[in-house]
C-alpha cells in the first residue's frame, strides 16, 4: 500500500488554514497575525531546508557529515537549555553545563541504539542516526532544562535553609539533598507524564507519521516503544548529570553555597 502523494497544491490548500487564522486575528484585533505568519513562514523554510540537508546526507552516507549534523543539533539544544533558565550560571558554564550533559547522555543512548539495538548498515546511516538523535535530544532537552532550572531557582529560594545546614556542619551534598530530590523529580516529570499519556491522550507524532506513510500500526507501535525507552534513558541520565553538575558549580570545595556564580534573574 502506498500513501497518497502530496502535491504542492494540496499543501497550499492546507496552508490556507493558517491564513484563515491570520484573518481571524485581524478581525478580532488580537495582534498576533504578524507573529503567526512569520512563525508559519519560518516553519516552511526550516523544514524545507532540513529536507534538503537530509536528502544530501542520505545520498552521501558519510560518518563525518552525519557527525557534523549531530553536533549542530547538540549545539542548538545547548543554546535552548540556556535560554530556558530563569537564572543562568555565570560565564561559560551557562552554555557548557547543559550542552556537555546532553552530549554525554544523548550520544551514548543513540550510539547504543544504533550499534546494539537497531544495527542498520552502516551503523551511522543518517536515515536512522539523525531522526533518533533528534527525538532523544528534543525530549532530553526539556528534562535537562527543567531540572537545572529547578535547582538554581530552588537554591536561591532555599538559601537560608541550605546555609543553616552548612553552618551546622553538613556537607554540601547533605545540605542540598532536599533540593536535589526536588530538581530530579521536576526533570523526570515530563517523560513520566508523556509515557503515561501516550496512546490514550495523544498518538505520538512519529507513530502517526509512520502510519500515515503506510506502515503497519503494530510495527509503528514497536518503533514508538523503542523510542520512548531510549528517550527515558537519555532524559534520566541527562537530568542526573545536569543536577549533579549544577550542585558542583553552585558550591565549592569548602562546602559554601556560591550563589554569586549565578547571574541575576532577568
Amino acid at each position, binding site marked *: 500500500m502506498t500513501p497518497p502523494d502530496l502535491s504542492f497544491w494540496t499543501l497550499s490548500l492546507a496552508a490556507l488554514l493558517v491564513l484563515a487564522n491570520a484573518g481571524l486575528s485581524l478581525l478580532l484585533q488580537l495582534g498576533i497575525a504578524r507573529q503567526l505568519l512569520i512563525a508559519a513562514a519560518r516553519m516552511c523554510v526550516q523544514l524545507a531546508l532540513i529536507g534538503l540537508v537530509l536528502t544530501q546526507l542520505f545520498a552521501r552516507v558519510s560518518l563525518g557529515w552525519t557527525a557534523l549534523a549531530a553536533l549542530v543539533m547538540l549545539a542548538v539544544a545547548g543554546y535552548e537549555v540556556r535560554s530556558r533558565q530563569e537564572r543562568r550560571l555565570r560565564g561559560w558554564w551557562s552554555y557548557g553545563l547543559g550542552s556537555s550533559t546532553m552530549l554525554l547522555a544523548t550520544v551514548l543512548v543513540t550510539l547504543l541504539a544504533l550499534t546494539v539495538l537497531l544495527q542498520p548498515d552502516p551503523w551511522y546511516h543518517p536515515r536512522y542516526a539523525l531522526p533518533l538523535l533528534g527525538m532523544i535530544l528534543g525530549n532530553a532537552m526539556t528534562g535537562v532544562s527543567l531540572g537545572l532550572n529547578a535547582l538554581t531557582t530552588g537554591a536561591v529560594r*532555599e*538559601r*537560608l*535553609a*541550605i*546555609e*543553616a*545546614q*552548612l*553552618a*551546622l*556542619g*553538613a*556537607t554540601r551534598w547533605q545540605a542540598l539533598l*532536599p533540593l536535589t530530590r526536588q530538581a530530579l523529580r521536576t526533570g523526570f516529570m515530563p517523560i513520566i507524564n508523556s509515557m503515561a499519556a501516550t496512546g490514550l491522550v495523544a498518538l505520538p507524532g512519529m507513530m502517526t507519521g509512520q502510519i500515515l506513510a503506510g506502515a503497519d500500526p503494530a510495527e509503528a507501535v514497536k518503533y514508538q516503544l523503542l523510542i520512548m525507552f531510549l528517550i527515558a534513558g537519555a532524559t534520566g541520565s541527562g537530568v542526573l548529570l545536569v543536577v549533579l553538575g549544577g550542585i558542583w558549580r553552585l558550591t*565549592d*570545595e*569548602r*562546602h*559554601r*553555597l556560591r*550563589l*554569586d556564580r549565578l547571574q541575576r534573574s532577568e
Partner: protein
Amino acid sequence: MLSVANLRRSGPPGPSLTAPAFSVAAGECVAVTGPSGAGKSLLLRAIADLDPNQGEVQAGPLLRSQTPAPQWRQAVMYLAAESGWWAETVAEHFPDPVAARTQLAALRLAADCLDWPISRLSSGERQRLALLRVLLRQPQVLLLDEPTAALDPAAVTAVEQLLRAELARGVAIVLVSHDDRQVDRLAQRQLLVEAGVVREFGT
C-alpha cells in the same frame, strides 16, 4: 580558644572586610558592635568560612586551613540572624529530639513544640529553636548573630542564662548585638566594625 589573623574578604559579591589579629579566650564573650550594614554578619560568616575569604583562623588545636569545612563548622558554629528550616516539622531539625525536649522549658518554649510544623512557629520561637539546635551540637566556639533580636524580655533573660552556662563550660562566644545593655551583661570586650573595618574597641 579562637584566634583570627589577617582576615580579609574582598567583594564582589558583597562589601569587603578587613580584621586585624584578635582572639577570644575559652569562657570569654566578645561582642561585635557597629552600625547596620557595616559588616558584623560578614565577620562571623568569614570566621565560619561560609563566604570566600583569606587569612588564618584557629580554634583550639584546629587550624581552619587544615580542617575540612564541615568539621570546622561543627567546632566553630555560626547562628544566622534569620533562621533556616529544611524539613516539615520542628523535630526533624534535631538529630536527637529527646535531648532537645529536656531543654525546651529553659528556653520558655512549649513542651510539645517539637511536634509542630515549622509554619506554626513565631519568629521568637524560631530564633530560640535555632539556638537550641546549635547548642545541642556542643561546638567549642559560638558565632551568634543577634540571637535575641526577636525575643521578649523574659525570653532574653532565659537565653542569656543558657549562654552564661556555655561560657562557664569554656565555650568562646562572639556575639553580634545591638543591645548595649546585653553587651554589658555578657561581654568582657568589644570589637567595633565600621564600613568593613574591624578594630578592638577602646584601643
